């Protein structure tokens, strides 16, 4: 049990919440997915800190899985979605 690690986990979670603004505002699809990619790294750190704060060692395995698979969505994005153009549906949201 460690106060410091719990406090750091909270700090990182607040970082994630702040970063959601970039996912929402974009403007390009790459901005959004890169923010999500950053959260993947944040999630790894949060899990590692929680493993210490809560004394659950197997949370480090969750961090391992998050780290190993963080790039999968990114690779699919690059191969299948990214065209270098702005989000074609962005206009639909702007009118709301």
């Amino acid at each position, binding site marked *: 049990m460690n106060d410091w690690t719990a406090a750091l986990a909270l700090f990182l979670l607040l970082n994630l919440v702040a970063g959601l603004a970039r996912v929402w505002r974009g403007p390009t699809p790459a901005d959004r997915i890169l923010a999500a990619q950053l959260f*993947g790294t944040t999630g790894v750190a949060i899990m590692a800190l929680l493993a210490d704060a809560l004394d659950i060692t197997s949370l480090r395995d969750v961090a391992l*899985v998050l780290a190993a698979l963080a790039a999968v969505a990114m690779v699919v994005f690059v191969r299948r979605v990214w065209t270098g153009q702005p989000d074609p549906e962005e206009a639909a949201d702007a009118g709301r």
Partner: protein
Amino acid sequence: MTAILWAFDVVLAVTLVALAAGVLATASLFRSIVLFIVFGLTMSIAWARLDAVDLGLVEAAVGAGLTGALLLNTLGHMRSQAEFTPEPSHGPGGRLALALAAGTAGLAIGAAVWAWPDAFAGLGDRVDTHLAESGAQNPVTAVLLNFRAYDTLLEIGVLVVAVVAVWALSPMRGRVLDADPPGLVLAGFVHLLVPVVVLVAGYLLWMGTDAPGGAFQAGAVLAAAGVLLLITGRVAPPQLQAIVERGAVVLGLVAFLAVGVAVMAGGHAFLELPDAWATTLILLLESLLTISIAIVLVILFAGGRTDAAHPPEDAAP
């Protein structure tokens, strides 16, 4: 300490609800998908806080990893279709009806949880009492592969049925996953990452009997390696022509049924694992299930018969 964790939980809960609302509220499918990926990651942190590490592992592999890849792949496919125009599928009346239905269901579930008798402690104690005879040290694995093996058998059955349904219903002619060879960076990255991902899957499978992990987590992680190979053209999309591919899909289900019936020869009930053999049988079943789950997920990611350039001979008109 308690105050910090309390603040952590409040931020976590508010973020989850906000993310769910954002996923539904945005008209941009891409933004919705990215928010959903973040929702999966946040959910996995929530499971960690709820002491449910097994679920946290599944959510990390499936929610934050595979589902995002599946949705992005589908979006790319939809946009490549000329007739694709994103339109809200429901009018204001339809949306109101859906909101009412979802709200009623939510209230009913909330009321059920509220009415939970204080004295009811769940079945955890009974699982702990009989853990020694299950052949597994991890209570979740003991329940999934021994005490409630019936449920797991039916779950793997559902996965096999899903593959049959997708294969029968969605030929997806004209769809080729990706013809372009990957760039040097992506090819090198996949080259380095895939062995690591396979190693992690093996680790989760091996750990599953003693600690959080097991066939479903390992299968999902292994499937991610398959998705990486598929999306970069390192392996061809599955055609399900070869007996090996078809065999791999049903391997877990067949092995489960075979073990379930075989133990009856020793005077046990269907799927009742004999104590002396339980650990070996669980590890064997989990290994075969991992292979089946991984290949099923990769096939579902590919989404149907994919090769339009070289159609199978029996598909010719």
